[in-house]
C-alpha cells in the first residue's frame, strides 16, 4: 500500500505581529496585510510534517501541498517550508486571510485537487489543519472532502498509524484531554490535524534546492482564484485583546514556575 497525500495549507500573517482589523476596498482586511510577514499556517504545518513523515515510511508515497494564497507572499514562505520536507506544490493565487468564505475556498481547493496529474483517489489521504490561524470555522477541510466525495473524515487528529493489514488507526482529540480512537479500513479519507506528534523538521537545504526547482514554476503559473465573502457582511471584527504581562525572572526552578502558573489559573 502506498499513499497519495494531499495537504491543504496556506499562509497566515505572522501571529507575533500586531494584527489590526480594518475595512479595506475589498471589504474587511488586516491593517498593512500585504506588508506583514507571513508564515505557513501552523495547523497546516503540522499536517504537512505528518504527511512527509508518513510518506517517508511508506514506500512509493507522495505528498502534494495545495495552497490558496497570494502568490507573491507564498514564494517567501516557501523558502523556509521547502527546506523541511519534500513535496510538490500546487498554487492558487488568491487572498488567504480569514475573511473569505469557507465554502468558496473549499470549492477552489477541491477543483485544484481534482486536476492534479497522476493523483490516485483510491490512495488519497487528504490532510489539512482542523482549523487555521486566520479562521477557526473548522469547515474548509470538511467541505473539500464532501465535494470530492470523501465521507470518512476525522478532525482534531493527533496520530495516524498504518496497520499491518492496510487499515489505519486514528486518534482524534476529544474534550477534556481524551482521545477518540477509530480504525479506518482504507483510503480515501480526510484528516484535519491538530498538532500531531512531530516536531518541526530541521532545515535541509539539499531538500530545499530539490523542491524549489518545482516550486518556483508552480508559483509562476498559479491560476487566479476568485474567493471572497460576497454577500456576507461583517458586523464587527475583533482580535482577542493582547495582554502581555511579562516578568523577567532568572534562576527560578521549573517547579516553582509551574506552581505559580497553576496558582494564577486557579485565580
Amino acid at each position: 500500500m502506498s499513499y497519495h497525500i494531499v495537504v491543504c495549507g496556506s499562509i497566515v500573517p505572522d501571529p507575533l505581529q500586531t494584527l489590526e482589523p480594518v475595512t479595506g476596498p475589498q471589504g474587511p482586511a488586516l491593517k498593512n496585510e500585504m506588508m506583514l510577514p507571513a508564515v505557513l499556517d501552523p495547523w497546516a504545518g503540522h499536517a504537512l510534517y505528518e504527511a512527509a513523515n508518513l510518506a517517508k515510511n511508506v514506500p512509493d508515497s507522495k505528498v502534494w501541498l495545495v495552497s490558496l494564497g497570494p502568490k507573491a507572499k507564498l514564494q517567501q514562505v516557501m523558502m523556509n517550508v521547502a527546506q523541511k520536507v519534500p513535496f510538490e506544490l500546487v498554487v492558487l493565487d488568491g487572498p488567504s486571510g480569514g475573511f473569505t468564505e469557507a465554502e468558496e475556498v473549499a470549492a477552489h481547493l477541491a477543483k485544484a485537487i481534482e486536476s492534479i496529474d497522476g493523483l490516485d483517489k483510491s490512495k488519497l489521504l487528504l490532510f489539512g489543519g482542523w482549523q487555521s490561524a486566520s479562521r477557526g470555522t473548522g469547515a474548509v477541510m470538511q467541505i473539500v472532502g464532501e465535494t470530492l466525495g470523501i465521507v470518512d473524515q476525522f478532525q482534531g487528529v493527533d496520530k495516524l498509524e498504518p496497520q499491518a493489514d492496510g487499515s489505519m488507526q486514528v486518534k482524534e482529540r476529544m474534550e477534556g484531554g481524551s482521545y477518540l480512537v477509530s480504525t479506518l479500513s482504507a483510503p480515501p479519507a480526510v484528516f484535519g490535524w491538530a498538532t500531531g506528534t512531530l516536531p518541526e523538521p530541521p532545515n535541509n537545504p539539499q531538500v530545499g534546492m530539490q523542491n524549489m526547482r518545482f516550486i518556483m514554476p508552480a508559483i509562476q503559473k498559479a491560476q487566479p482564484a476568485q474567493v471572497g465573502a460576497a454577500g456576507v457582511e461583517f458586523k464587527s471584527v475583533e482580535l482577542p485583546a493582547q495582554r502581555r504581562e511579562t516578568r523577567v525572572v532568572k534562576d527560578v526552578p521549573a517547579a516553582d514556575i509551574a506552581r505559580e502558573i497553576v496558582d494564577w489559573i486557579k485565580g
Partner: protein
Amino acid sequence: MERLRTLPGDDVRQIMWRFADRYDLQMVVQSSRSVARTTAARLVADGARNTHEWTPEKAELLKAFDASGLTGMFMEPEQGGFLAGPKNLAMCLVAFELSWVDGGAATCNLATDLALAPIHERGTQEQKDYYMSKCVPPQPGEDREVWRGAFALTEPLPYVGVDTGVVSGKVRIDEWKEGEEPMLQVEKRGRFITNMAFANFVTAAVNTDDERIKSSCMVILEEGDEGTYDPGAPTLKMVHQLSATNDPVLSLKVPASRIIGGYTVQDGMIVPNYSHGEIIAAVFQRTRIPVGVMTSAKLLSAVEPVIRYQRGRFRGGESKPGTPRYELGLQQNEDANHRLLDVWSTGESMASLGFAAGRMADDFDPIEKEKERIFAEQEIKGPRAQMKALKPKEQDAIEMIQLRAKPEGDRDQARLDALEADPLVQYSYLSAMSNVYIPACKLWNTGYGCQMMREAVAMMGGYGITEDCPGFLGQKWMDAQLEATYEGPEVVQRRQLALSMTGPVFAAQLTAWIDELRLHAQETPGRGHCTLATAFELWAWTVEHLQSAKDPEGKPLMHGRRQGVTFALADALAWLVAVKCFMDDVDELAEKGPMNAVVAEGLDALVDFFGDMATWQAARAAGEAGRVAADLVFGYILHPDCAGECCSADAAGNLFEGAEAFYALRRKVDAAVAGARLAKDRAAADLTKVMIPEALDYPL
C-alpha cells in the same frame, strides 16, 4: 499621510541587497535566521556567554549549523555542499542573520570557512576535495565526524597582529628520503585562534627555517599528526563568547604535501607555489567583508527593540492608554527619534556597503581565476610580472568606465562590449574597486558602527547595559569592538585604503560617479544625490591638492608614512562610499519595487522614507568629509600671525595657493546639505508611527 508602515521585510531587503532572484540565497537566509533566533538566542539568554570555556551547551551551536545546512554552505555541490559558484554574498547573508542575534555565533559559523579559505583560494585540487568534503556533515547513511578547522596566522604576544611581514612560526625539513616525499617539522604557536577548542585541523602560516625551503608558506596540520597538537588555554575574552578562542601550541611532523597550493623541487630545494603572504592577501580580501556585515546587523537589529522600549517607557507610571505619554513614551521627544534615526541610517549604509562588497567579490572570484589561467598559459609568474602585464589594462579599464558613464545611444557600444568581455580589463577594474570597497567596509562598518552601537545602547538607558536588554544590545556593543579588530585592526584597513584610494581606475570611477549622481539629482531631487556628488568632488580635490602640498619643512604630505594625512582621507572616503552604496540600494528599490506585488504596496512611502534617511546620511558624510578636508588642507600650514589671514575681521583665509577653489567647493558642500535636517525630521517622525511586531524577535 501614512509613510513607513512596517519595518522593511525580506522582500524589500532582497531587492535592495540584490538577491531577489536567488532562491538559494533566500533559503540560506531562512536557515540562518532559524538557528540564530532559536539555538543562538537561547544560549545568550541562558547566560552561555558568561564563561570562557567551550561548553557542551555552546557546542549545540555546531549541531544546529550542521542540521540547518549552514556548515556545508561554503562547499561546492560536488564536495557535498548545495550552493554552486562564489559564496561571498551568501556568507555575508549568513553573517548578517546570525549576528542579528549574536556575533560570536556568526564567527563560530564562519571560522571553519576561514580555515578552509586558504585551501579554497590557493589549495591544490586534491587538498580542496579532501578537506572540503571532510567538513560537510554526513549525508543520510554516512557515518563520520564532521571536521572543523581553525586558521592560525597570529602569533603569541608580542607578535600577534595580522601584519604578514612578521611570522614567527617555523617550518623545516625533518626528513627527506631519496625519491620520497619530504617530511616537514612545523612549529607554530598561535594566539586568539578561533574554533581551536574543537578544530580537527589548522591552516597555519609559517616562515621558512631551512635553507632547503625557499619561502614562507601555509601548511595544513591535522589533529592526528605526529607530535604536539595542543589546543591550549581558552582566551579570556569578554566578547564573542559563543565562539571558541584558544592559544594553541603546535609542533608537528607532516608530509610536504600539506603545503597549501603545493610546491616544486628546484635544485634540491622545496619551493612553495605560494608564500603565506600571497595566500593571506587572497583570503582576507574576501573574508573581511562578512565581518563588516556583522556589525551592520547589530545596528539594524537595534531599531525595533529601541522603538519598543521608547514607546513603553512611561507605561509603568500614571499615564493612561490613549494619552501621548502612554502611546508614544520617549518618542514624544524629538531627540529620541533623531538619535535612533542616526543609528538606523548608519546601519543601512553599513549593510549596503557590506553587501555591495560581497557582490563585488562574487563577480571578482571567477575573473580572478580566469586571470590566473591566462597568466599560467602565458607563463607570467609572480606578483611583479603580473603587475607589469596588467598595467596596460588599467587604461582599458578607465576607458570602460568612461564609456559606461555615457548615455547608451552616445557611446561606442562595440568598444564597450569588447572591453567588458576582456577578463584582464575586468580584473583591473574589479581589483581596483574591491581594494577600496572591502577595506572601507571592514573599517567603517566596524569602527564607526561600534560608536553608533554605543548610541543604541544609550537609548535604552540603564536597561541597555543589562543582560536582559532586549536584542542583547549591550553585548552587541562589546562585540562590535572585536569585529573592529578581527582580521586586522582598523589601522590595517586604513593602510590598504591609503594605497588603493589614489589609484587611477578608482579615480576614473569616482569622476563617473559624480556625473551619475548629478544626473540622479536632477531626476529625483532632494534625495541627497547632489550632496554626495559635491562631497566626492571635495574629497577628490583634497587628495589632488595634498599630493603636491608640502609641510613647512618641505616634506610631502601624501606619503605612506604620513598616516595623519592618508588615514584621515581613508576614513572620510569610507563615509562617502557607504552612502553611495545606500543610495544605490534605495534607487534599486525605487526601480524594482513596483514589479514585486508585496513591495509595491506602500512602496512610494517606503522609498520616501529611505530617501530621507539617505539624504540625512549623505549630509553627515559630507560634513565629515568637509571637516577632514579642511583640517588636512589647513592643518599642515604654519599658523600665521593672528592679525593676518586666518581670523582677523577681513581675513580671506587665503593661506595657500588655490584656496579660493577649495572655499568654492566647501561652500558648495555646505549648501548642498540644504534640506537634510528637514528630511531627518520627516524620517524621524515616521519612527513614531511605524508598526512593530507584537512580540520580541527572540527571547530575553
